[in-house]
């Protein structure tokens, strides 16, 4: 039970370590607070996406056949590729944190961070170019370009709505994540982190992994669970 009241030597002499905030008594207290804060934020994120998942489950049960038909409009190849890309980016993120944690050179941390960013950007690029854009051309984007007919029932339209809302919201989180990573790269370059203090890296990592987990569920829910075996 380490508590913050033991005013550390450093704080007492006014020599705060970089990144230490005045309202805390110790660096450890600050680190724990940051991590706890991020976990609570992720809990709200679970409920945020949860509202979407609940709606999806309800409508799927109401329009089962249409949702299966709708899921057959999606391209599993790109979905699966993107899943792999995101998992790779989670690995590189974990390695970036590990690199800071174990006091490797800042070049090593920056390398892993930039690799993570490249993978994240690749995910968005694939999504945009080979999925959303293709869907737009095909005319299966509700509210934007929806070509009626082709046996598309209202339920299929509903499915596509959810597909775009859910993947869109996820992609938005990816973009925010890329922004955070950019800041982290700059901070690392300016020697803001050490093996003593790398809390921003750690909590950003939690966020990045969370976004990965959302996709881990979106992929089967949107692309797979209807089964891909019927038809061609």
């Amino acid at each position, binding site marked *: 039970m380490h*508590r*913050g*009241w033991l*005013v550390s030597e450093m704080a007492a002499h006014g020599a705060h370590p970089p990144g230490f*905030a*005045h*309202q*805390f*008594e110790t660096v450890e*207290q600050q680190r*724990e*607070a940051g991590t*706890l*804060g991020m976990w*609570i*934020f992720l*809990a*709200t*994120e679970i*409920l*945020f*996406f*949860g*509202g*979407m998942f*609940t*709606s999806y489950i*309800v*409508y799927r049960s*109401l*329009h089962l056949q*249409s949702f299966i038909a709708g899921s057959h409009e999606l391209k599993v190849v790109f979905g699966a590729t993107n899943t792999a890309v995101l998992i790779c980016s989670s690995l590189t993120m974990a390695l970036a944190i590990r690199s800071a944690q174990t006091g490797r050179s800042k070049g090593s941390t920056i390398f892993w961070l930039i690799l993570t960013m490249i993978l994240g950007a690749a995910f968005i690029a694939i999504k945009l170019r080979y999925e959303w854009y293709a869907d737009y051309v095909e005319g299966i984007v*509700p*509210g*934007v370009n929806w070509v009626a007919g082709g046996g598309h029932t*209202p*339920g299929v*339209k*509903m499915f596509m*709505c959810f597909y775009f*809302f859910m993947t869109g919201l996820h992609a938005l989180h990816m973009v925010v994540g890329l922004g955070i990573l950019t800041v982290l790269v700059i901070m690392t370059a300016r020697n803001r982190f050490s093996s003593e203090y790398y809390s921003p890296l750690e909590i950003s990592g939690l966020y990045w992994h969370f976004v990965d987990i959302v996709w881990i569920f979106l992929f089967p829910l949107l692309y797979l669970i209807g089964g891909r075996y019927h038809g061609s």
Partner: protein
Amino acid sequence: MSTATADIQERPGAESVNYLNANYGIKSWFLTFDHKRIGLLYLASINLMFLVGGIAAVMMRFHLIEPQGALFEPETYNKMFSTHGIIMVFFFLVPSIPATLGNFLIPLMIGARDVAFPKLNLLSWYVFITGASLALIGVLTGGVDTGWTFYPPYSSLYSHTAVTVVAFGVFIAGFSSILTGLNFIVTIHKMRAPGMTWFRLPLFIWAMYATSLIFVLGTPVIAITLFLLALERILHVGIFDPAVGGDPLLFQHLFWFYSHPAVYIMILPGMGVVSELITAFSRKKIFGYSFVAFSSLSIAVISFVVWGHHMFVTGQSVYAGLVFSVLSFLVAIPSAVKVFNWTATLYRGSISYEAPMLYALGFIGLFTIGGLTGLFLASLATDVHLNGTYFIVAHFHYVMVGGAVMAYLGGIHFWWPKISGRLYPDLWARIAAAIIFIGFNLTFFPQFVLGYLGMPRRYAVYPAEFQVLNVMSSAGASILGIGYVIPLVYLIWSMKYGPVASANPWKAKGLEWTVPSPPPTENFAEIPIVTEDAYNYPTIEAHQYPDAPGVARV
């Protein structure tokens, strides 16, 4: 009155540095990370919103003096009650106590220098202001006429008002709630002073913790729901449109998943404040500390599984209705436990009746009525008759205005010496409390009868037979309105002319009373070490000192 003059001399020199005079200028306020100043920023902004919502309410009551409507076209009246509801719920009641008193007091009460994330705290105020401004812009440019519940398909397809803008404002303000809740939870977990164990925490902190849980777990759902609604309005994709397979009831489920717990966001902090006031003015330890503390948590948890009682007549399945009904009864029990414990705290106390105590006692009485009338609505058969009528309006105003606003005012009065460093005129404060109590009951009690008689809510015109009760209610509203203006006047007056307050004018317990009034920016010169329970007021054992003054009258 005894405290008003006695303690002035205790105060250190007038030039002592505190959070108010530490630095000056607009920048020192709008860029402050000090939780106390942020609390005051919130105080100013939510009172402004209260004013807007209150004006709308007074206009509505004037309109309803005549059955055919005295003032407006129905369309304007609809915008009026929607504005009132949206502003009051999302921009006043939800942030009322947490964002003002919570921000100001949590670090002081637990012995911390600030909340865990001061920058996030300021950010959440800016987010709130952005949301509130958007909502106000929406209200002023075109208004909104959906009611605060935004039910589709009316809100999504039929309303021609500024629904999207206002919903977006509420959406943004939601993130302010989330950030505040997150900050409070981390602060309460990680920033407590040495010795401040969980069971030594003031009950206000327990209540704020429970409230923060709801903020964090409920608010994201309303955010995503309003987001879907806005998309539906902009793109017409049919999410809540039954014509293309959408289900409007799904919106209601998601909406009430947040909005029912939100009722407890409003009342739980009030309960926390009342626990502080009752103990301070009876100079006694709270009766059943752990029961009051755990009832806050259980209310927070149960509040999430009762939302379906808003949907008993909306076409929800009978079976779901049964489950929600039994769970709704369940939430009555921790609330009852709290009321009994507060009342029992008074027993053998040393009770004085300064204004905050009057508000606290008013809270207990009105909340009792508000809570018990909730049983009518948890009961399936009576709810069918009363749902959507003025009975509902009366019930939730008893809880939210009689409960939450009373507690808010009581809390502001109680901690005003700490916040401002000044004392307000107690006589005026007592008069205002009495006027508010009378005005409130005159406004809302007739509405219970109106509801049972069958008058539906949100009616711009109504059958003539309901006029007498409506006029009574409107008369009460004007009294209530005056009652609310009085504290505004004397509190502002007191900031300049009020007698200077000592560190502890009420002789209350709690860490916030151990620091000067107003507190210094860093709160505590040295972080205190806590060695005793909350509300450890001196008492004597009855059998030991049968002749002691406190015992003589028993």
